[in-house]
């Protein structure tokens, strides 16, 4: 099975070694063979994919210059709107929902020639760290099928890892791109908050949600980010800050780059084998010319508590829109208020309900100051930790997750334990900085470990540069 990259696929199509239609065919065959076991895809969009592939093939035939992702088969997380293709967010309440428009990220990828194969499974409304909260079944980790792929973008990670898509889009609110990337052994990145338009991303926690790519290598990550980044008038939080040429930036050397290693990310709760791999990864960074500096980020230990106040508060507000009136499920009742209650009670799954209750509670009269306001203040301290660190170092390196992929069902009974697994990723989410997870060896040659690199706000180029050189220097096989 050929593991196509964006560049190799585009070149093969440009050189007429394979047509875009044949490549799409190949990927649909792979999906047909492997998806019944993995459950990475929830919906396929062959009509749209083949129409796009034919367009690319026509461009090849007429000798026109090809866009950067011409004919490249990709997958889109099911929290991201796709016109004409069901977008369920992994929830029963949106089981039949077909968006009338595309997310900006989807529009831009298609304009760059990408072929959208279908929609990938995820935790319901992106709430989860294992993909076990999907209303449409668990996703299996292609590297170890008795284990979770991570979450919430588990389907997007599994699809790329299993070779069922060349690249994919996920969404990250507290680690939902980086952690599944780590569990499935593929690079996965979220840009700075504001770097990529959220238009068409179905909201979970609006001050934290970000769209970002999974791919087979860091250069492909740079390519996708390049295409989806930049100001969009449809999202007022997307910034006008110029987008650098990431694909050029990734090739630059990192000699003398100051890499901060925060001691708080290597404490109790970290798996011993993960620690060994990350330490070996840090040696690779030194070998390619980085200077490591031990730093302190004193508020790290408060990040989970802060995150689960802010994320649930925003979620309880955002999910108020599912009322059985405009779209999605309705459970009938003669009374309007009872119709709301029944619809939401029947349509949402357990984790979503738990978070709505918690989020409503921390926002309710008498508790707002003690919880929500307190959370916002500690968020400011966590963001300050990052700003302080970047006065001493250029990037920050940590493990992506304290543990490798765990067994299916192992953690579902205890939500707090599940939340604590997000300890190394939620910090960067709260601070708004960019972060990537890159493969950093495998435990017993099997379970992937991810090394996380945080950059300063809008410092994606540095992050990509370091991740690319780490990958070239064999970081993936330490």
């Amino acid at each position: 099975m050929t593991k196509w990259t964006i560049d190799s696929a585009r070149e093969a199509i440009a050189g007429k070694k394979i047509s875009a239609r044949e490549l799409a065919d190949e990927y649909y065959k792979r999906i047909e063979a492997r998806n019944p076991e993995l459950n990475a895809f929830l919906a396929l969009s062959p009509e749209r994919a083949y129409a796009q592939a034919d367009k690319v093939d026509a461009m090849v035939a007429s000798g026109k210059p090809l866009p950067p992702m011409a004919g490249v088969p990709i997958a889109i997380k099911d929290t991201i709107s796709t016109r004409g293709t069901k977008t369920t967010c992994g929830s029963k309440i949106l089981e039949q929902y077909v968006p009338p428009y595309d997310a900006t990220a989807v529009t831009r990828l298609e304009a760059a020639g990408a072929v959208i194969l279908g929609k990938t499974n995820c935790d319901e409304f992106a709430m989860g760290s294992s993909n076990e909260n999907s209303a449409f079944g668990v996703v299996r980790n292609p590297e170890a099928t008795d284990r979770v792929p991570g979450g919430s973008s588990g389907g997007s990670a599994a699809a790329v890892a299993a070779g069922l898509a060349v690249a994919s889009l996920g969404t990250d609110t507290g680690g939902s791109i980086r952690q599944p990337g780590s569990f499935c052994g593929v690079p996965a990145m979220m840009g700075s908050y504001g770097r990529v338009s959220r238009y068409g991303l179905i909201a979970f926690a609006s001050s934290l949600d970000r769209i970002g790519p999974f791919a087979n290598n860091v250069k492909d990550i740079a390519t996708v980010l390049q295409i989806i980044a930049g100001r969009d008038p449809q999202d007022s939080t997307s910034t006008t800050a110029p987008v650098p040429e990431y694909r050029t930036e990734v090739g630059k050397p990192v000699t003398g780059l100051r890499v901060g290693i925060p001691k708080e990310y290597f404490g109790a709760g970290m798996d011993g084998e993960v620690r060994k791999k990350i330490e070996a990864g840090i040696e690779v960074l030194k070998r390619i010319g980085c200077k490591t500096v031990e730093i302190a980020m004193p508020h790290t230990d408060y990040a989970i508590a802060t995150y689960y106040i802010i994320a649930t508060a925003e979620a309880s507000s955002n999910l108020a829109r599912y009322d059985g009136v405009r779209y999605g499920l309705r459970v009938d009742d003669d009374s309007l208020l009872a119709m709301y209650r029944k619809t939401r009670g029947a349509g949402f799954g357990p984790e979503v309900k738990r978070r709505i209750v918690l989020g409503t509670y921390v926002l309710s009269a008498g508790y707002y100051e003690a919880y929500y306001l307190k959370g916002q203040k500690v968020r400011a301290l966590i963001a300050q930790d990052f700003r302080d660190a970047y006065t001493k170092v250029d990037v920050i390196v940590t493990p992506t997750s304290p543990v490798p992929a765990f067994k299916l069902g192992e953690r579902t009974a205890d939500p707090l334990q599940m939340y604590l697994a997000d300890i190394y990723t939620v910090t960067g989410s709260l601070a708004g900085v960019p972060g990537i997870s890159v493969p950093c060896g495998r435990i017993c040659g099997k379970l992937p470990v991810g090394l996380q690199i945080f950059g300063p706000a809008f410092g994606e180029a540095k992050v990509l540069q370091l991740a690319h050189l780490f990958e070239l220097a064999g970081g993936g096989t330490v």
Partner: protein
Amino acid sequence: MKISREDVLRVAELAYLDLSESELETYRLQIDEILEYIGKLNELDTANVEPMAQVLADDQTADATLREDVEIPVHAAAELLRQAPDPEPPYFCVPKVIER
């Protein structure tokens, strides 16, 4: 105990969320444990810290990103109404809320 059965009921009412008896008790226990954990934030003195609602600095939002307030027609209404649970174009229908 941080959160009582009555608290969960009150919050579920605020959120228009039907919960079964078993959900009510499970969530009460789990959320109690989560709130206990969240209590660790009280170790921090935040009296002089400004709350942070979002991460973008002023120069990245406000004037830089607010567009002119012009009308941009979006022709999605018909398509959206088609998949509403109870449409009567151009309206969404809801159970009767006003008694005659």
